[in-house]
């Protein structure tokens, strides 16, 4: 299984990558903004994505919508500092499967990703 980590912060990309303790992940890809994320998404076809929201160029909400349109089976975990309910609902409406608020503990991101892998499809239209 391939995972794409999308965040404009190198610190966060590395932190997520180092935290990963998910069985079956064969390749970790990273992108620093929505535009780069879409290029890697189409080129490598990851099954799992962690998605920041506030990013330059294409934000995470738009990126989520485009990814789900391209592949409805992709599982997207939004990992964002933006902590209001309206944003979380919007992300889920656009097709995200889960929402994790920064800052996060290592166990929290693994738990959230495992829930997605195990088939929690809440929010997907």
């Amino acid at each position, binding site marked *: 299984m391939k995972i794409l980590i999308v965040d*404009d*912060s*190198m*610190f*966060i990309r*590395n*932190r997520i990558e*180092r935290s990963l303790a998910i069985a079956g992940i064969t390749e970790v890809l990273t992108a620093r903004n929505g535009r780069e994320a879409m290029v890697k998404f189409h080129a490598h076809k990851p099954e799992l994505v962690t998605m920041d929201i*506030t*990013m*330059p160029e294409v934000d995470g909400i738009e990126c989520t919508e485009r990814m789900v349109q391209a592949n409805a089976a992709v599982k997207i975990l939004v990992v*964002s*500092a*933006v*902590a*209001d*309910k*309206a*944003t979380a609902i919007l992300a889920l409406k656009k097709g995200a499967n889960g929402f994790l*608020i*920064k*800052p*996060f*503990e290592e166990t929290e991101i693994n738990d959230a990703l495992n829930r997605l892998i195990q088939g929690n499809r809440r929010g997907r239209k």
Partner: protein
Amino acid sequence: MDENDIQILIDGTVHYFRSTVGQSTEVGAPYLVEDREPVVSDFTGIIAISGVYTGCVYFTAPRAMLRHILMVNGETRADAEFMADVVGEVANTISGNARRHFGSEFEISVPEVFEGRAKDGQLQLAERSFVIPIAWRQYRASLVVSLID
């Protein structure tokens, strides 16, 4: 911006540092600065705020503290680009978390970061800003809240 609003940002700062670098972080009582003179350290990350408030929230920290934060998070690289990335992410996370209290009309920008002194127009402060002092180990950093209604 009243005491309760400031407390939200203090709580967010405590939560961020305790999650990222451990329990030893202390956040001091905020103090008011009224001279529009920016409090800056070696690296500064700014989030522009619009909507329900206008202005900025910024985090500023010394190089040694940022190097240490990177180290305790397992990073072997601690160059200027990486330190700038960290101050931007701290400011972004604390500001983003504040939307839980302020709502989605507390609109935040992507971070702008700089090293050293601010260039002209880079840090435009309100008449009154609140400085929230942060102490971790021997280091001192600040979260500055400069917002008008």
